[in-house]
């Protein structure tokens, strides 16, 4: 009702609230005009009275001339229905239902009726219509300037709607503006312009004045240029520079249109026009791509298409103020999806009213800007996020890695010899396995009390730099020279290794160095913990030695208690005995292959069997291996 007064200051509205007979509360409104209303021809409009038991919905809705709802309304029928319309819908004043001078009811514009009368011609018109600016071929005065004297006082939408109602041809006004008391706009098409002129004096305004429409041929309006004139761009750029705070990386384009610098230069930066917004975005891209905050409030923006470029040209943009604009639906925000906004202002846009409650508003906005933390100045509640980062899986664990068969045989051969001595009860012969300058150290897990107890034989020689800080002790516990190495080895508990359990990883292999890690289990064969199963991880670094052997230069041993699993699976295969470990199940050819292989390779039967098994008892491969070993 307030809006009513604004545009029709000379009308008074009195609302009567009545309790109707059957239908509950009823609101009746009386519209009367007050004061003198001199009309041009003495015509006056008296606000009609409305009576009746109808409930009235008071809602303001702008309607375009081709609003489908209109078409369904019965045409030409006078009556309260139209009067309701008049009161409620300020914009859509059904002026066409006001009696004109000759008393006939004016028909509302109905595109279909026109089409029926004139066939396809209307569609031609529409194609070529006033809405099409993109075409070229403009002659000098190919456009028409339409002027509405005293049009400044009218609401633009009301005026254009009213004119459209009266104009038999749909028109699209270009560059509507007011100048002095006039309202004016441009039309491209002569036929449309002429049709519109016929609407002159067909409309009577609220004061009773007839609305005049004048037309004048004119050159195409400069507003149509798709690019700003260079000097306008320069002024715009200068203005933007003034409005840019480099310390905060903020650009404030609030109400840019009324910027005094631009106004004084006659630059009219209507940001709702693509040409201006494009220019602004380009200036940002070229000059301040580091932009973080952008304020575009109060610029009558109704779409954000041009801003989409900011996604790439201003990648650091985090805060955007779009408040006090004309953004109608949440869909306009889709254009900015990709901007990593943290802070957004949207209030005072029509789109805000479209949500039934705040949570739905927030989630609609968050859908486009998932990282948003502040909306309209309010801190947002933390979003519920499902961590969709797929948990990577660990690669599957595999067994021994030798790198090459040659190395495999070399190492297996070596280990077989080494541990047969190591487990023999006298480790002294191991001197032959070590280099003069070899080093050895051992370590064990220190934290677990059980292991400290069960591994106490190893404890006093255990070298854990995490807990051992004294440099002398650190030095002392590193055994250097083979004599010292083997001396310590001899002191360690006697063992029985489960060779079948061995896993071997070769980490490095060069011409001079072979480094590999052996892990497996062994048993204590005497002492307090006889038959206790231990697990170990041992790093050997060796250099080549004569007769295709290895010579150890570094040896590091890590010992721990075996797990239940390890204990259960340990020593599943019978320990190798010097005589034979032929599995009776082997077929005769296999037995033969096995004994030949063992003879040729120098490995015992158990190792030989293992190698052959690994190669699927393939005689050809076995032959190749013989050859290699021989060489």
């Amino acid at each position: 009702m307030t809006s009513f007064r604004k545009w029709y200051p000379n009308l008074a509205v009195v609302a009567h609230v009545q309790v109707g007979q059957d239908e509950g509360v009823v609101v009746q409104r009386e519209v009367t005009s007050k004061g003198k209303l001199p009309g041009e021809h003495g015509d006056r409009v008296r606000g009609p009275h409305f009576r009746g038991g109808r409930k009235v919905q008071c809602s303001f809705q702008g309607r375009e001339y081709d609003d489908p709802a209109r078409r369904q309304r019965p045409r030409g029928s006078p009556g309260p229905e139209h009067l309701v319309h008049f009161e409620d819908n300020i914009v859509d004043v059904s002026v066409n239902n006001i009696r004109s001078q000759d008393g006939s009811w004016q028909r509302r514009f109905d595109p279909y009726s026109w089409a029926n009368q004139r066939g396809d011609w209307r569609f031609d018109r529409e194609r070529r219509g006033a809405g099409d600016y993109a075409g070229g071929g403009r002659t000098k005065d190919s456009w028409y300037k339409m002027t509405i004297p005293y049009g400044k006082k009218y609401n633009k939408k009301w005026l254009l709607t009213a004119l459209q109602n009266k104009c038999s041809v749909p028109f699209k006004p270009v560059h509507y503006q007011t100048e002095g008391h006039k309202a004016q706009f441009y039309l491209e098409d002569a036929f449309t312009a002429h049709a519109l002129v016929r609407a002159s004096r067909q409309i009577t305004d609220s004061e009773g004045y007839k609305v005049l429409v004048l037309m004048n041929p004119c050159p195409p309006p400069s507003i149509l240029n798709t690019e700003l004139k260079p000097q306008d761009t320069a002024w715009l750029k200068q203005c933007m520079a003034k409005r840019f705070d480099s310390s905060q990386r903020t650009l404030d384009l609030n109400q840019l249109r009324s910027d005094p610098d631009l106004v004084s230069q006659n630059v009219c930066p209507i940001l709702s026009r693509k040409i201006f917004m494009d220019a602004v975005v380009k200036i940002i891209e070229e000059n301040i791509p580091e932009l973080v905050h952008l304020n575009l409030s109060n610029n009558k923006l109704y779409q954000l298409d041009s801003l989409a470029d900011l996604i790439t040209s201003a990648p650091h943009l985090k805060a955007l103020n779009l408040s006090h604009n004309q953004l109608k639906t949440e869909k306009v925000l889709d254009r900015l999806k990709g901007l990593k906004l943290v802070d957004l202002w949207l209030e005072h846009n029509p789109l805000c009213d479209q949500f039934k409650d705040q949570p739905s508003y927030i989630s609609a906005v968050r859908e486009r800007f998932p990282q948003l933390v502040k909306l309209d100045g309010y801190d947002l509640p933390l979003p519920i996020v499902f961590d969709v980062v797929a948990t990577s899986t660990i690669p599957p664990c595999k067994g021994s890695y030798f790198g090459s068969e040659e190395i495999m045989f070399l190492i297996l051969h070596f280990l077989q010899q080494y541990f047969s001595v190591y487990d023999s009860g006298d480790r002294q012969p191991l001197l032959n396995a070590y280099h003069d300058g070899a080093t050895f150290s051992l370590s064990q897990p220190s934290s677990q009390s059980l292991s400290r107890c069960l591994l106490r034989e190893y404890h006093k020689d255990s070298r854990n730099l995490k807990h051992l800080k004294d440099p002398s002790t650190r030095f002392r516990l590193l055994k250097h020279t083979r004599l010292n190495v083997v001396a310590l080895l001899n002191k360690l508990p006697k063992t029985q290794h489960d060779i079948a359990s061995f896993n071997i990883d070769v980490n490095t292999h060069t011409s001079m160095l072979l480094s590999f890690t052996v892990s497996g289990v062994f048993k204590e064969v005497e002492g307090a913990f006889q038959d206790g199963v231990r697990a170990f991880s041992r790093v050997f670094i060796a250099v080549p030695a004569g007769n295709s052997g290895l010579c150890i230069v570094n040896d590091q041993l890590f010992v721990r208690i075996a797990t239940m699993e390890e204990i259960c699976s340990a020593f599943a295969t019978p320990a190798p005995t010097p005589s034979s470990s032929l599995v009776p199940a082997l077929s005769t050819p296999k037995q033969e292959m096995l004994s030949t292989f063992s003879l040729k390779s120098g490995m015992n039967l158990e190792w030989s069997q293992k190698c052959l098994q690994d190669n699927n008892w393939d005689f050809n491969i076995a032959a190749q291996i013989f050859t290699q070993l021989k060489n």
Partner: protein
Amino acid sequence: DSTGKGLLDFRSHVDASCRYSEEFTNIYYDCMDKKRRTLTRLYLDKATLVWNGNAVSGQAALGEFFESLPSSEFSVQTLDCQPVHELATQGQTTLLVVTAGQVKFDGHKQRYFNQNFLLTAQASPTSDQPVWKIASDCFRFQDWSS
């Protein structure tokens, strides 16, 4: 074969290796846990890794491999270190670093591990302290077969 001087050299060599290995393991596991993307910088270009029997070599492959591992939380409980005999390294100063402890990979249960590295010293353009890089890396869960 160890002269007095030689022993002294060896002793200081051992002392230094202990310190280097401590420093190195701190950096390595911190990187592994918190800055995984920068981990490959600690490796030589042609470094090799054997990870539970999976062989990976070269910076590119290493980078991909570490990227594919879930995030980790390492807890090193045992550390030992030996200077590698120069015979094996042809004069290039090398350390053997051996670690053991526990690791929890995101989405998996905590497991015990054994790991050892061969570190080689490379001359640094900016200081007289060498830059240590991993030439080889061998890692295995203690219960890898389960």
